[in-house]
């Protein structure tokens, strides 16, 4: 194995840093996925839990780096993958263990509230949220249709349109997720947290919609510039577009997590398996806010979810079949 492992080691360290801080990106009334009293995070028990988690994260990260270096020296590429898997598993297990320890400090969940106002929520850019990526893909497909014949290159249908088909599937998935957040998540179940929840939902939707635009623009540009005519500037413009369309919104989400008005999410602690997986058949929400990490996770107890999963699997199979025949 001769590939340089420097960038991969840097990536592992970056993931380690992210995992180091993830438990702090939470609603202020939660600590390791448990509903706690205000100010609990400053107690000795809370800090000890955080220290244990971080120790496990860095032990996993060091192990991952050792596997990377060892795999490179022994020419065992799978060892590098195993190392990175170890890093993820150690962080997840550490979170689950600390979560279990924190359960004894849990306080009863507050009463639930709901606004009686009727509001029509939409995606951040309205119809443009859908029209922009669909328009980009359609325009690119038309451009390829009229120009690939003249390129003189021996390319199959799959090579010409394959990236666009995969991009279209990713667009459908991401925009469907945005719609589920609009129509299938609560607007703030605890009194006083409605404003924060609204800001969090908007920030998440902006990340999804504008991230989709960035991804579509890059894939379309790369699709049009396949073959030997790819402009050199594209190699730095493409990552720049991806970063510009995601990083500001991701940072906004993380900053929101530091807002003291976030309270708790109103989901029962008992329904969070290992503090990571939400399973509540009595809750009609298809998605709820994550308790480990930033964003939304699915409610595995909701039967509607399984229809969505079935639809997703069908879409993936369909795309695989289309690309295979191309």
């Amino acid at each position, binding site marked *: 194995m001769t590939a340089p492992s420097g960038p991969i080691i840097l990536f592992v360290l970056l993931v380690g840093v992210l995992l180091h801080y993830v438990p702090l990106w939470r609603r202020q009334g939660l600590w390791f996925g448990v509903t706690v009293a205000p100010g609990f995070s400053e107690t000795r028990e809370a800090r000890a839990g955080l220290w244990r988690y971080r120790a496990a994260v860095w032990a996993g990260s060091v192990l991952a780096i050792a596997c990377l270096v060892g795999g490179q020296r022994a020419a065992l590429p799978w060892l590098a993958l195993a190392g990175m898997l170890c890093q993820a598993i150690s962080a997840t297990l550490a979170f689950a263990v600390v979560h279990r320890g924190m359960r004894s400090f849990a306080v*009863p*969940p507050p*009463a*639930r*509230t*709901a*606004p*009686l*106002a*009727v509001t029509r929520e939409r995606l951040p850019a309205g119809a443009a949220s859908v029209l922009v990526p669909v328009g980009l893909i359609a325009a690119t497909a038309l451009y390829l249709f009229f120009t690939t014949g003249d390129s003189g290159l021996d390319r199959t249908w799959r090579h010409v349109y394959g990236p666009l088909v995969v991009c279209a599937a990713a667009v459908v998935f991401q925009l469907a997720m945005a719609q589920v957040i609009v129509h*299938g*998540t*609560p*607007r*703030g*179940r605890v*009194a006083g947290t409605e404003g924060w929840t609204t800001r969090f939902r908007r920030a998440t939707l902006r990340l999804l919609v504008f991230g989709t635009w960035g991804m579509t623009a890059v894939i379309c540009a790369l699709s049009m510039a396949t073959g030997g005519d790819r402009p050199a500037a594209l190699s730095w413009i493409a990552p720049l577009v991806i970063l510009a369309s995601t990083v500001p919104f991701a940072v906004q989400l993380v900053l929101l997590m530091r807002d003291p008005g976030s309270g708790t999410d*109103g*989901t029962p602690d008992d329904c969070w398996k290992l503090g990571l997986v939400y399973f*509540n058949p*009595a*809750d*009609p*929400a298809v998605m709820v806010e994550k308790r480990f990490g930033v964003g939304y996770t699915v409610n595995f107890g909701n039967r509607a979810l399984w229809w969505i999963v079935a639809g997703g699997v069908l879409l993936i199979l369909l795309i695989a079949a289309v690309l295979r025949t191309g």
Partner: protein
Amino acid sequence: VASPTIRIDPGAATPVTRQIVDQLRMRLVERALAPGDALPSVRRLALDLGVHFNTVADAYRTLAEEGWLDVVQGRNVRVVARPTPTANAETRIRFRRRLDQLVADARAQGLSAPAVARELSATAESLKS
């Protein structure tokens, strides 16, 4: 003006449907919800409260039967003008009995007689305004 909200306690002895009905009726009587106002759909309110759709649907149905709401398929829910029924002697007796039970319950939980009297006076004052 802040929009009215509803508050439930899933751990309380009172069934959630009853809690929703009682609170909505309170908002309707107080005119925080006036005729013509739209209410969230069954689906939206159930999502926001984290309770089953049927719980909210039952609550809306109860209030529709009392003449407060017009519910079309659980999607469009509107407050309707409701003629005030004429209270008879039986209604007054029933109210008095419930009030006595409520006072007894409060005192059994440790609220002193003057404290209960103060609360009742405050309620009486708010009815005058």
